[in-house]
């Protein structure tokens, strides 16, 4: 009888278009939803609203001129993009081993500061969209303090443009270690307050636990990397699997989850913030003195004295700037652990001063394609934490 009534009712699925300008779809993405009441029956994701032709831009500039563009991929952690690109170019040049130790350590510090800033932003935005507006601001404050450090080193908060092929743009400022120490002390307070506000809060737990879960196998077959993969229980971190920079020298834990749901992703990110602080502190204590640029006139800029004294230095300066650094023929890819996962630049050089092809492997592209898989069958409201913990960055995904 009951079923017959159900059949007589003329019900149909509700088609809903979520985004591209919807409060939750920051980073401009669009979801086509078919809803049965509040349940999602079908979900399609459409990306590409922030496509700016990054790869084509890079092919039209010199190797150095691509650095400002890489800043604008994942704008929350710009130094990491700089580093990933620089490492790929250095591999092409074959100078990876000649980078001075100080530069390597400073790069590691910047990478980890960027990771912190990115995780702060991500977790803050995630809680904001779950309605916890105050916890959001506490982590944004922590992020601002972290960006203060990045600004004092790079000269800009977001578009750092700090790393150069063969080294760095400039050395660390005076009093850097003290600045980092005072900021970390404040950030640890914010972290514990955020943790107290949310981690044990049942409302938050109910929203995060067992929502947007993905199995270990599915995560691998969707090409997940980074915190989302580790949340699913896969022990894979590029920093350990194929160490680059100074990650071999420092001691840190890589948090791994079990079920791959949003709560695991949240916990993994929370713990990674602490581990990043640990890495930065170790790097600061290990930080050697010395040069910050490779001693190779065909790669770096000459010093003022040299440029004004030696003809060759001046010529190299002009040639490097006008024609670009001369990179031999070949192709390279260096995987790095970006904040959201494996970040790498696949570069092809035909010789000469410009990249022939510059392809970025953005971590969140692979994560975004699994949105439909993770959300189908759950509630409309579950899209919000899942999408936040995926951390789609439009600049990176759409390029």
């Amino acid at each position, binding site marked *: 009888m009951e079923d017959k009534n159900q059949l007589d009712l003329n019900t149909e699925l*509700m088609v*809903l278009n979520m985004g591209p300008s*919807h*409060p*939750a779809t920051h980073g401009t993405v669009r979801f086509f939803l078919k809803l049965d009441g*509040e349940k999602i029956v079908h979900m399609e994701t459409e990306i590409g609203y922030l496509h700016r032709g990054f790869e084509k831009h890079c092919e039209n500039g010199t190797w150095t001129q691509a650095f400002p563009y890489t800043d604008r991929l994942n704008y929350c952690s710009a130094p990491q993009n700089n580093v990933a690109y620089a490492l790929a170019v250095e591999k092409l040049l074959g100078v990876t081993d000649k980078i001075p130790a100080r530069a390597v350590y400073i790069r590691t510090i910047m990478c980890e500061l960027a990771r912190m800033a990115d995780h702060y932003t991500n977790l803050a935005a995630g*809680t*904001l*969209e*779950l*309605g*916890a*507006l*105050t*916890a*959001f*601001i*506490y982590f944004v*404050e922590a992020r601002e303090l972290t960006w203060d450090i990045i600004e004092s080193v790079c000269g800009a908060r977001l578009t750092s443009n700090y790393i150069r092929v063969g080294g760095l743009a400039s050395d660390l400022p005076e009093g850097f270690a003290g600045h980092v120490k005072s900021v970390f002390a404040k950030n640890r307070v914010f972290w514990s307050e955020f943790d107290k*506000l*949310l981690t044990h*809060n049942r*409302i*938050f737990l*109910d*929203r995060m636990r067992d929502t947007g879960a993905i199995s270990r196998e599915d995560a691998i077959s969707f090409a997940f990397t980074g915190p989302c993969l580790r949340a699913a229980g896969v022990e894979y971190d590029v920093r350990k699997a194929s160490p680059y920079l100074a990650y071999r020298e420092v001691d840190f834990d890589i948090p791994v989850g079990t079920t791959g749901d949003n709560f695991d992703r949240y916990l993994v990110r929370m713990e990674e913030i602490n581990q990043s602080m640990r890495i930065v502190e170790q790097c600061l204590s290990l930080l050697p003195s010395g040069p910050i640029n490779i001693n190779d006139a065909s790669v770096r800029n000459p010093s003022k004295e040299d440029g004004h004294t030696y003809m060759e230095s001046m010529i190299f300066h002009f040639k490097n700037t006008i024609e670009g650094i001369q990179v031999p023929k070949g192709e390279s890819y260096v995987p790095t652990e970006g904040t959201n996962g494996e970040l790498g630049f696949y570069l092809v050089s035909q010789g000469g001063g410009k990249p022939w092809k510059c392809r970025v492997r953005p971590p969140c592209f692979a994560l975004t394609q699994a949105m439909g898989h993770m959300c189908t069958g759950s*509630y*409309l*409201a*579950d*899209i*919000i934490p899942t999408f936040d913990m995926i951390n789609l960055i439009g600049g990176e995904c759409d390029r």
Partner: protein
Amino acid sequence: MFDYTYLPSPNLLPSLVEMMLKIIFICTMNMAVFAPVLGWVERKQSALMQDRIGANRAEIFGFTVFGLLHVATDALKLLFKEDFIPRGADRPLHYLAPFIAVVPALVAFAVIPFGGKYMLWGHEANLVIADLNVGMLYIFAVASLSTYGAVIGGWASNNSWSLLGGLRVGAQMLSYEVAMGLTLVGVFMVYGSLQLTTIGMAQENFFHWGIFLQPLGFILFITCALAENKRTPFDIPEAESELIAGYFTEYSGLKFAMFWMSEFLEMVTISAVLVALFFGGWQIPFISHQGLIDAMGHLFGPNFGAIVAMLIHVVVFWVKVISWIVILMLIRWSLPRFRFDQVMRLGWKIVLPLALANIVVTGFILLAVR
């Protein structure tokens, strides 16, 4: 069942004056003081909670008055904003919805006493607009009317998000209406009345305040009240990250302001009900109602003494109400929001059984005491 004591007594003129004064007072408090100022309080309070400064830019001749002028600029902006009605909307209902939302919040205040009874020049002034013997039932009845405003607004907007918001309002209000009624049954049993003035007088003794006699009832009621108010953590009908703005997505200008105002007014009403039922209403701890009037009478003479006592009681009541508004705002800004099914689960599976248990336990205790 009904007695008609709230109708004007044969001594018509003073009663009429008294009635007018009370209505004007409550309307001014709500419409002119609370509805706009709460917008400011909410901004400033949330700013300070979040280590921010908050609204501080609107100024007249260089005076910003701590950002209070933003209230005026807000009103001006909303007044002059285009009143947008989407294509395909049900125009009459679209017009009607904000009014249905805002009126009940105001009208509910009629039965809440903001002071006791005072003899002024031989006329007994009772500081409640309508001293109904079914006071709380009246509040329930009126408060549930405001649901229609949201549901109709959601339906009439011809927008999928509004519709989802309207559906969520309907379901949420329905669930918590039941639980809210039952949570207060314990209070009625303890005080033996539905009349809010009687309940207020019964809380003359500090240890007879509702919070001490009905602690569980208090927690359950505040949960239900938050849910009825549709603010975080129960703001799923208007969850901005899910449904854009829920049932008022398609409202702008003054109609939007009316939804906004109804939310603030509901918050005032809820705080007032909380104070009236659980925090002694206008009563000052350890000072009896008549005691204060007598003491003031000794100082200022019987009539003026009564007026002074009345003023003190009114101020005490509003201070309590404002403190509760601040606490409700603290809760609203601190917590994340539920999911739709979790709100339902909390309402039906936790609050409702606990409310029933509370009634049973209260009944047993009352039997044992008597």
